[in-house]
Each structure stands twice: as C-alpha cells, then as structure tokens.
C-alpha cells in the first residue's frame, strides 16, 4: 500500500523507470493536446465534403401533421433534405430499448428531437435551408414529472408516451422486464431482511430519520461537441469517423438503421474531447451516414455548443425518499428508500442507471434490512442516460445526507457513525453479494481525519478576493462568511453489471522495425481524454520489456473494446492487452526455443527477423448475474471501488455564495497503473461532483431547456476548484489485472455530498436539493420568491 500525495505523485512503487506499469509515463497525445495541434472530431475535413445540419423540434411534445421540405430543397447549394421516410432500415434504435427514431416520424417527444436533415455545400446554407423546412405541429401537453408519468401519488389520466411495444435490444444489461407498461422503463426492487418497519424489524428502541432529496439534471459538459465525417465507399458501404465512447455498439445501431451489414459500415475513432457518458448514445452518426449515402459525398456534421445540449443525454434528475432506522448506539438496522429517475423521452441506458441507483442506493454500509424501490420513467423532458457515476451519484446525495441527519439525531459524530456501519471486505452488500476484495471505508475516513485542516479564512480590506466566496466579484471582505466541514464516502460498481457479457478485444503485434523491436497495440477501445492510450503502452512495456509501443488507430477492424464507461477500460481492455502480450511472449519464446523472456529480449532482432508475431485476445472479467426481479438479490457486480471526501467551505450566508476552500480525497485504486493519471481522474471527478452540488444544472421548465449554453450552464472554473489533498491507496483486488480497481467514477460519487454536507455545517440549514443555489442559502428565509418578500 502506498500513499501518493496530491500535487506531485511521487511515492508509488515503480516496477521500472521506462514507462511501464506504475510509472507516470507521458501521454502519447499530451504534447499535441496542450499545444492545440491535436485533431478532434470537429477538425475533420475533406475538400469535397458537404455539411450536414439537423432540424430539431421546438416542442417537447407534438404531433407532426406534415413536413414540407420543398422550400429547403429549392435553396441553391442544398444537396439533400431527408426525413424519417428516408431511413432505409429500422427507424428506431437504442442502447437497451429500440424506442428512439433516427428522425421523428409522427410525434416528437422532447424539445430538440431530430426531425429532418439537410446537406449543403456550406454549413450556413444548410442552416438556412433547415429553417425553410415547414413542419406543421399539433402541440400536445407535455408530461414533465417522473412521478406523475408513473401515476405515483398523483392519480389521474396518464399519458402513455410509448404506447407501441418496442424491442429490447441484445446489448441490454438486465434480466428484469424492461418497459413492462405505460411510462415505466424499469422498476428495481431490493427486498432484504425484515420488510416490516424499522422498529418492528429491530424489535427495540429505534431512531428513524426521514428525508426527501432532489438532484437536478447535470450535463457532461464535454469540451468537444458531437462531430463526425461520413465518407461513402466504393463498395457501397460507408466509413464513419466519429467522436464516441464505443465504436461497436454504434456500428450495430447504424447497421440496423441503414439496413447494411457490418462489413459495409466501418467506424474509426475521431479525436474525442471528453465524454463522461454523453457519447454512449448515437448523435449525428446515422444522420451523417444517411446524407453521405444519399449524396455520394463525404458529409461532416459538427454540433455547436447550443445544439450539443440537445444532442446528447444528461444525468437523470432524481427525487428520493429515504427512511433510516438506527439503534440508539448508532447501528443502522434498516433503510427504506424510494428513488424516481426522470428518463426523459427515450430510454437510452435508463434501465441500467435505475439498476445502479437502486443497487448502490444505500451506500457502502452494512444494513440487515433493506427495502428499495427505484423507478425510471418516460417523460417529455430531455432524454437522460449515462453520466460519470451512473445512478450512484444521485443516490449518494440522499444516503450521505441521511447519515449526517442520523448522526445529528443520535448525537454521534458523523464520521464515527459511518465508521460504525462501514462495509469491509467480507461484508454482505444489499444484493446479498459478498464483498470479496478490499473495502477500506474505515481507512479512507481515518486517513481523511488525519489530514490537517486548512488555515482559517482571512478578512479585512486587504483580503485576497480569490479566496473569498464570490471571488474577484468583490462581494465580501469577510462579512457573513462562515466555515463548514463536510464528509462523505461513496462507492461505485466497476465495469458492466447484472449479467452483461462485458469483454474487450486486443491485438498485439511484436516485430522489428528500423532495427528495433516495436509493439503495436490495436483495440477498438475509445480514448476520450482519460489516458487509455498511455495505459495500453505501459502494459505492453511491462509485459514485453519493449520500450517502443505504437497504438494503432482505433477502429472496427478489430473486435469490440466495449464501452469507455463504468470506469472499466483499464480493467477490461487493460486485461485484454496484458493477456495478448503474454501470448505474444509465449509464441516468441516457443519460436526461440528458450525458456526465459529476459534471455530472448536482448536478441529479438535475430529471433524475429522479418516476421511479426501477433496475437488477438478476447478478454472477459469474471461473470456477473442478473438480480432477482422481486428481491434484487444476486451477484450483480464485478468489483466495487470506494472513495471518500472531506470538504471545507466558506459560505457567505448573507449572499448564499460558496467558496470551496479545500477538497481532500482518499481513494483505493488497487494498483495505480499511472499514478499521475489516477490523481488527475480524482481531481476531475471531484470537480464534476462539486459542480453538481454547487452550480451545474440543465434547467428545464415545461419540457424546455432554459440554459443551453456555457453562459448559463455553469461549470467550475479554476477559481472555484480548490487545491486538493489526495491519498491513493493500493489494496490489490486479486480478481483484477495487476490488482487494479476502476478509478474514474468513485470521486464523482462522494465529492458532491461532502460539499453539500460542508455547506450545511456552515449554514446550519438542512439543504435537500442540489445544485444549491444562492437563494436557497440566504439566511433571511423570506427571499426565496418575490411573493414571500
């Protein structure tokens, strides 16, 4: 076990200094990215290409009476205008449920739903043409609340948004019935232990704390908008260069929509400017291919920032009701919880998010009696799907708030209450699954406690405004500022769960080029900025002892690498690369007739000659099971990863402005393959969770997005993000390659709840909704609406 300090990770055990596993190997794409020379999807260019533009619905719910594309076609420079009638294959696609039309047919179910496509020789021409398409809409009343959509507690006539049955597609992750009726996408149930109320279950004196919590709709806010270039090929197929998270699942869906076999639809990864889950679903993929096939010309599509807010799914808004039952001395004996996730107009990955929110929904604690109901609902709000943390984030705000509320009710220190009930290796999860590797919840919290607290805030005329709530906007010189400290711990399931066949493919070749041994690693696993290309190089260097490792372009000419999500790529694609390297080594050893790799390594030029040794491996992590649809019991998960945060804030309680003074994070990563990249993930994940707690929300009113821009969808700046103290634990998981644990998501689970707890500590207000807005904090309770002022 090794600790890595925050700003300059130094102390991890280095297996070698040559860029192998455990070193801060430099990113192969790092220099290009920091100098602005890296080519992202939006930089794709061919001289004779056309520009594609999407016409989107202005209404969250409407029937399409007619579409007149004539005026658009009449505009000079326009090459094609397409509608749903022009989709040659299956109209509907989806990650788990094929419910989303490539282009709207007879109804639109959310604001921004694609209705028609235009290809023109100039993007401005395409935009002008799309504005000339006449769509006659019959505007319908939108369904905008998940509970109303399900008929929960608000009985009355219910509008079913998807009355026709649609197929559950093969990559579905669940055994439970999806879309059983009405607007219900999935209902996840856990029934563990005694199902009577807490006091009856425990048979003794019980303190019950109850809370209702709400989480707003967060956006991934990746920097590179959805972009791609579709090029018609001589064989009648199409080559698509696209920024995405999972080439092969895109390919499957595109093939169905185009009615073409996968040999004819070839995908290559374009430069990806961040993803965070927002690129799991199709965006412009099929659209650009349709336009390219129709016009016979390359077609580029690249969303602008506003369109991007309509072009990808968001994090599910959540409403949550929790009841925690504690004994007087602090044993958590029961949790009863209900979670409603607003899936928006189409399912996307909602079913899996529902599974996660429910199964991870009581936090990293041991609880004998659990009653959990988690629903995902269709509404006419923007579709929601994958985002870093994937359901675990929303639930953590509720269960960690409940732990603080319980601590207050019992008069127990909030950290001690968590420690008392913490999971550890060997604990039984709410699913009945045994936690069979390190679960260092107690150690993570104790290490946070051991860290020094930052110095007290300064005040007065010569104060450094950058350290104040409000920053350089000069709102306080110390007046009204109160300090608070908050704690939270969270956990996340790593890789795909609930019986999904989760695998990755790696092809590794060893040959002599220019007189030097060279390894080429070829996978279809998407580098989205997280550093997978670096990790692949490091693993190859460590396994083969060869320094020069080339990462081949990422495309569908090799088997699926699975999704770059669920913190799974270093584990699963890393595992595939490791195994492929080991097979290459075995093949070379067999050819050489020697027994030790060290003996062959110095002699590779002679052993290999002009021949390359290549091995392709399909690698799976250990299998998981579907959970029982009535009880939620089953070995649903591959691995759990844990992180904890201590957050210190200064709050200007008169203005409701927050300065996060410091975030401290402890996280177990099993093995830090690249310690610098690990700490980077912890910084970034913590920032994204903090953003949700403080400012990041897609504000939707009556189905309409009110802030589709970075002017009003605020993400933290460097003056909002504080310095971090980070300690990385390396407690190996014996089931995983190198003992590693997924890294990217856990810090996003616990940072937000710790920020919220710190604000509560500073203000004394029990805030129940994130993001916390200034008007929620201002102590004069009469300023929340004009009417009450």
């Amino acid at each position, binding site marked *: 076990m090794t600790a890595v300090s925050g700003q300059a990770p130094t102390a991890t055990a280095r297996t070698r200094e040559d860029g192998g596993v455990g070193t801060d190997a430099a990113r192969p794409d790092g220099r290009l990215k920091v100098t602005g020379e890296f080519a992202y999807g939006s930089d794709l260019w061919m001289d004779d290409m056309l520009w594609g533009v999407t016409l989107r619905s202005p209404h969250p719910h409407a029937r399409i009476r007619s579409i007149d594309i004539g005026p658009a076609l009449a505009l000079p420079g326009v090459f094609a205008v397409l509608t749903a009638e022009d989709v040659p294959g299956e109209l509907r696609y989806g990650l788990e449920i094929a419910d989303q039309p490539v282009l709207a047919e007879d109804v639109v179910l959310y604001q921004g739903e694609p209705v028609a496509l235009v290809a023109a020789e100039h993007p401005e021409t395409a935009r002008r043409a799309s504005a000339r398409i006449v769509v006659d809409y019959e505007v319908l009343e939108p369904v905008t609340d998940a509970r109303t959509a399900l008929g929960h507690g608000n009985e009355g006539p219910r509008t079913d948004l998807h009355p026709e049955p649609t197929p559950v597609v093969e990559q579905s992750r669940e055994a439970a019935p999806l879309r059983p009726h009405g607007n219900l996408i999935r209902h996840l149930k856990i029934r563990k232990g005694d199902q009577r109320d807490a006091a009856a279950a425990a048979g003794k004196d019980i303190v019950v704390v109850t809370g209702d919590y709400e989480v707003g709709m967060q956006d991934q806010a990746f920097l590179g908008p959805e972009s791609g270039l579709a090029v018609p090929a001589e064989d009648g197929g199409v080559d698509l260069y696209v920024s995405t998270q999972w080439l092969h699942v895109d390919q499957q869906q595109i093939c169905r929509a185009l009615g073409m076999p996968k040999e004819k639809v070839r995908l290559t990864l374009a430069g990806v400017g961040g993803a965070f889950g927002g690129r799991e679903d199709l965006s412009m993929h099929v659209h650009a291919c349709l336009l390219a096939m129709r016009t016979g010309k390359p077609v580029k599509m690249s969303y602008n920032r506003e369109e991007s807010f309509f072009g990808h799914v968001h994090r599910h808004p959540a409403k949550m009701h929790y009841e925690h039952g504690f004994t007087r001395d602090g044993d958590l004996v029961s949790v009863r919880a209900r979670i409603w996730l607003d899936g928006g107009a189409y399912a996307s990955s909602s079913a899996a998010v529902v599974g996660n929110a429910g199964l991870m929904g009581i936090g990293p604690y041991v609880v004998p009696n659990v009653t959990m109901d988690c629903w995902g609902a269709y509404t006419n709000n923007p579709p929601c799907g994958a985002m870093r943390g994937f359901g675990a984030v929303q639930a953590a705000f509720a269960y960690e708030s409940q732990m603080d509320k319980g601590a207050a009710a019992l008069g127990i220190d909030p950290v001690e209450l968590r420690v008392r009930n913490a999971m550890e290796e060997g604990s039984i999860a709410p699913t009945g699954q045994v936690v069979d590797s390190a679960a260092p919840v107690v150690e993570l919290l104790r290490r946070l406690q051991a860290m020094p607290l930052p110095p007290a805030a300064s005040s007065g005329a010569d104060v450094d405004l950058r350290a104040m709530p409000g920053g350089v906007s000069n709102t306080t010189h110390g007046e009204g500022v109160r300090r608070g400290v908050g704690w939270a711990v969270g956990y996340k399931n790593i890789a795909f769960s609930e019986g999904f066949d989760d695998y990755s493919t790696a092809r590794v070749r060893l040959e002599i080029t220019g007189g030097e041994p060279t390894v080429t690693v070829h996978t279809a696993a998407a580098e989205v900025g997280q550093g997978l290309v670096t990790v692949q190089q490091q693993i190859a260097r460590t396994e083969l002892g060869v320094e020069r490792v080339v990462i081949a372009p990422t495309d569908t000419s090799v088997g699926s690498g699975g999704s770059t999500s669920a913190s799974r790529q270093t584990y699963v694609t890393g595992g595939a690369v490791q195994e492929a390297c080991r097979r290459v080594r075995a093949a070379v050893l067999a050819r050489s007739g020697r027994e030790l790799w060290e003996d062959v390594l110095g002699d590779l030029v002679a052993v290999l000659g002009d021949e390359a040794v290549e091995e392709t491996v399909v690698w799976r992590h250990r299998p998981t099971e579907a959970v029982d649809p009535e009880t939620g019991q089953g070995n649903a998960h591959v691995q759990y990863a844990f992180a904890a945060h201590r957050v210190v804030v200064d709050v200007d309680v008169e203005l409701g402005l927050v300065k996060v003074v410091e975030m401290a994070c402890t996280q177990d990563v099993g093995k830090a393959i690249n310690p610098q990249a690990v700490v980077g993930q912890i910084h970034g994940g913590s920032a994204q969770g903090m953003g949700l707690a403080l400012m990041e929300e897609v504000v939707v009113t009556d189905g309409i997005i*009110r802030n589709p821009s970075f002017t009003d969808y605020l993400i933290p*700046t460097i003056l909002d993000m504080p310095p971090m103290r980070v300690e990385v634990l390396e407690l190996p998981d014996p089931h995983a390659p190198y003992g590693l644990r997924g890294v990217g998501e856990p810090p996003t689970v616990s940072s937000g709840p710790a920020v919220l707890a710190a604000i509560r500590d500073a203000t004394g207000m029990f805030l129940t909704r994130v993001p916390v807005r200034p008007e929620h904090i201002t102590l004069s309770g009469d300023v929340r609406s004009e009417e009450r002022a």
Partner: protein
Amino acid sequence: MEFLAPGSWPDALAARAENPGAVPIAGGTDVMVDLNFDRHRPDALIDLTRVGELREWSVAEDGTVRLGAGVSFARVMSELSALAPGLAMASRTVGSPQIRVRGTVGGNLGSASPAGDAHPVLLAVGAAVEVESAARGPRAIPVSEFFTGVKTSALEPDELISAVLLPAATGPQQFAKVGTRNAMVIAVTSFGLALHPEQGRVGAAIGSAAPTPLSAVDAQDYAAGELVDLWSSRGELPGGVAARFGELVAAAARPIDDVRGTAAYRRHALSVLARRTLTWAWDEYRRAA
C-alpha cells in the same frame, strides 16, 4: 455579410453612415457570440480595431478622463486603477482573462445589456458617453440617459461610440457583483458606488436588476444627507445608515425571475452589496485622512 475595416475614425463614421444595418465590432466578445449562435446576421460588420485613436486615453486639465471606446478591460485594470478605481474593479469581474484582453468599455456600452459590468460604476461616477456621426459631429450623452431599454441605447443608427468621459476619482469607489460562480460569470445583480467628497455626493447604481442599469436615486440622496456633516470630520458611519442605504438600493431595483436568479434574491443581494460597499468605501475614506 460584408466586413468593413476602416483605417481611421472619419472612415469608420463614413462606413457607419453608409451602412445603417451594419454592426460595429471591436473585441467581438458579445457580437461573435450572437453570430455563432445564429441569433443575428447583420448585413455588414464594421471592424473598429484598426482605428488607433479609439485605443487611447487621456486626462484633461479639468480632471476629466477621456477613455477611448476601444480600450480593453485588461488595460483599464492595469492603467486606470487610480483614476477610475470603480471601473477598474468592474473590469476585473468581466469574463475571463482572455475576454478582458479583447473586450472594451465601448463595446460594453454598445451592447447596452442590463448586466453590462461597466455600467453601474459609470452611472455612479456620473460619466458621459461621447458619440459621433459623420453628419452631425460629436455629442456627449450622460450615461443616465444612454440606456433606453433592454439592450437598447440612445445611440443613433449613424453614430459610433468614440469615448467615455468620466471624472477622475476624488474619493473611494466600489463595485461588487453577485454570480453563481466565483469567476467568469454574468451578473445575477451588481452594484457600483462612488463617493464624491468635494461635492458631498454619493453615486449609487445597480446592474442586472431592471430593464436597464439604473441609479438608486433615493439611496444616493439618503446617503448624502446622512454624510453631510461627516465629510470633513471623517467620522464613523452612524449605525444603521449602511443598512438603510441597502434597503433603499434594493427598493430602487425592478428585478425579474429568470434562469440566473429570482427577483427576490436580486433585491436581497443588492441590499447586502450596497450595505457592504458603502461601509468599505467610507472606511477607506476615513483611512485616507
């Protein structure tokens, strides 16, 4: 869309006169956002960055600072913090460092947004906007008469903004702005304050809490009345004055609920900002003795 790039001020005025649908552009930090979001497609742009005199500032013998319309916020911060401290403070809150290098005070006025960061201070110090047309020559519009509605101003279609005229500071000035982020944020509401000891006057103006930036006249009069005997003694601010001043500023606002904040919060925040900034300014005035 035509792109006109006059090399001199007379050429710029001529271009403006000949192209009534043209939009002047300097730093482009507002104009380009509108173009990129496809909100506006003007017939022509008049690029003012080649007109060198717009980037100059000077001080007249009577102490009036003439600030060329093309002086960037970054330069106001670094070059004018003594002569125009309030405007320098406001400039520091504009966008990001990159935006402050591009964006200009003239452009801020040209956009005439109720949330423009320069406006409250310009109102509080009693500045004037110098504008000019080829046909009628120059004129000075008091800032208090410049803003006519949401993103509309008294600028005629054939006029360009040449400069801002503001008195060199004779007392402490303050600017404070509330946003839901600690940097690079549009004002939820903002407040500018200027003490004019030689005139026994207090300037107070609010931003982003009414259809236009506006002066808080009752608050100004109240503060001047309370301070009338204190300018020379530099005595302590009497208890309750700052709070009452804050209430009067809040009362002057005409805010709305929008995605950035509620009307009630804006009013409340203004009362806090006004109370705090008056206290800071008066303390600075006393310390300067």
